[in-house]
């Protein structure tokens, strides 16, 4: 079964699940899993496909969430306008930030990306007049879908939100899949695999990193908008490092640079985090250990498990192959 089919199958399963699960708490967990899957898929475009470690991803999530919060509570715009606006604002910010920081390589980029998100968080925290500071925006209205005065879907109910989240996740995955399959994704892959050689064959690492960064920013902003309208509250913590960390864990544990990886990661990490709620203090420590173990024993993530069991194909020239200096 190909990766795409597995993804489609999972989405289809998720689509019929509400028929069997009525529990509101389980529904809530699944909706949050959709949110995290969107967020980690967006981060995966940068971490997985370009190979740049961005520790400031929460900035784009937060920008999307705040855009939605401000536009819907202050300007009274409907969700369906707030959502694309959130994507545009986050994407524009990603373009501005990326155009400067992606010229830096390696550690410098990592640090600047982290600093950007933290600075943004402090600015929001201290903008009490403009952005309500630590108070945040409560009472963000739920979306509604009506046609000619008839309400088609009322998102005050969990089930409708569930399908909204699932649809947005499917759209996010589709966008990521299209990106990865395009020649642009291919170029990004070349940069990740061997930057020097990529440049020698004419691939511009900066341009590719920037396109992936902006795409990741747009998708994170859309995820942020969904988050805002679902939880009905947005405060400075959406810009916090913990969101970036969670998404990063999901990408690494699930499998970098794959479509399925962030999805699996979001499900496994999200559900484990929830199960560990009873031992709240130890939760993050346990996660730290899990992350270390994952990197040590499963560097390609959960998705690599299913290929590992398959026997290696017979080698064409076993004696020659032993000489290969690149054999790991």
């Amino acid at each position: 079964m190909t990766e795409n089919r597995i993804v489609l199958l999972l989405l289809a399963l998720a689509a019929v699940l509400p028929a069997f699960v009525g529990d509101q708490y389980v529904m809530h967990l699944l909706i949050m899993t959709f949110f995290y899957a969107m967020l980690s898929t967006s981060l995966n475009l940068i971490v997985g496909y370009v190979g740049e470690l961005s520790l400031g991803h929460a900035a784009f999530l937060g920008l999307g969430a705040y855009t939605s919060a401000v536009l819907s509570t202050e300007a009274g715009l409907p969700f369906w306008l707030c959502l694309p606006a959130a994507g545009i604002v986050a994407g524009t910010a990603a373009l501005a930030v990326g155009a400067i920081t992606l010229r830096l390589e390696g550690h410098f980029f990592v640090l600047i990306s982290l600093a950007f998100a933290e600075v943004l968080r402090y600015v929001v925290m201290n903008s009490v007049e403009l952005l309500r500071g630590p108070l945040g925006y409560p009472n963000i209205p739920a979306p509604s879908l009506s046609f000619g005065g008839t309400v088609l879907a009322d998102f005050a109910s969990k089930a409708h939100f569930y399908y909204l989240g699932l649809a947005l996740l499917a759209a996010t995955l589709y966008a990521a899949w299209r990106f990865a399959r395009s020649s642009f994704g291919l170029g990004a892959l070349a940069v990740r695999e061997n930057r020097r050689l990529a440049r020698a064959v004419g691939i511009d690492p900066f341009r590719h990193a920037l396109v992936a960064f902006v795409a990741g920013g747009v998708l994170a902003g859309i995820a942020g908008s969904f988050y805002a309208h679902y939880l009905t509250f947005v405060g400075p913590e959406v810009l916090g490092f913990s969101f970036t960390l969670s998404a990063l864990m999901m990408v690494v544990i699930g499998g970098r640079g794959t479509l399925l990886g962030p999805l699996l990661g979001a499900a496994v990490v999200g559900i484990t985090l929830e199960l560990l709620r009873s031992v709240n203090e130890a939760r993050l420590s346990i996660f730290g250990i899990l992350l270390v173990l994952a990197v040590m024993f499963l560097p390609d993530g959960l998705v690599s498990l299913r290929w590992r069991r398959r026997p290696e194909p017979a080698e064409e020239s076993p004696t020659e192959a032993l000489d290969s200096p690149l054999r790991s």
Partner: protein
Amino acid sequence: MAMLEIDGVSKRYGGLQAVKDVTLRVGKGEIVSLIGPNGAGKTTLFNLITGFARPDSGRVRLEGEDVTGLSPEAVARHGMVRSFQITNVFANMPVIENLRLASYLRMRSPLLSDVFGLRSARDRAARTMKEANGILDLVGLARFRDTPAKRLAYGQLRLLEIAIALCVRPRLLLLDEPAAGLNSREGEKLTELLRRLRDGRGLTVLLVEHDMDLVMSVSDRVVVLNFGEKIAEGTPAEVKENPQVIEAYLGTPFEEEAA
């Protein structure tokens, strides 16, 4: 007009004058070898030509067009493509994917038609694939098409590097020690491949090489560097006889070494 003109190029790293006022020309369809003892500045000169390092002074022109100080990717897009001294391939990918990545520039369509998988983008991808298969045949790696690059033997990897460079459709191919680590049989195959590239495809090649058999049999001209300076230039026969070269580079005359 010459394919490549290097005019008075210099580069200093701290106290080390790595390349000093080097001028050389490579004509269209020529195979020119750059030789010299270790540390003579051959690889630095390659880096200066291909944009991986910026010269302190001097100009580099490709068919009359000034490419001095351009980024490596821009130089490659101008049709000057290099290989590396240390084997450099996309190790985790199958051979054919390596070539597909290298053909990237020609596969690329406008971003939107590409992302939405339009017909024109797909056609372009198919054409590129066909060409990649042709190049695999040419270098003799066709049967390893789907083998991950890291499983290839050393000699095959060197051929793959050349295949990768060819996928960019270079006018000028720069090879940094392509024969390093090859056995004599593989070396002969490489010589033959280089001749075929020159005669069949009209390709111009600039070569850094230590393997004297290869250099002497394949080169139209040989340029000798020592301590960053050009000390001699001529046909293989002329360079072999040049006393300065013998002293600086070969140490002992050819006849004695062969004896």
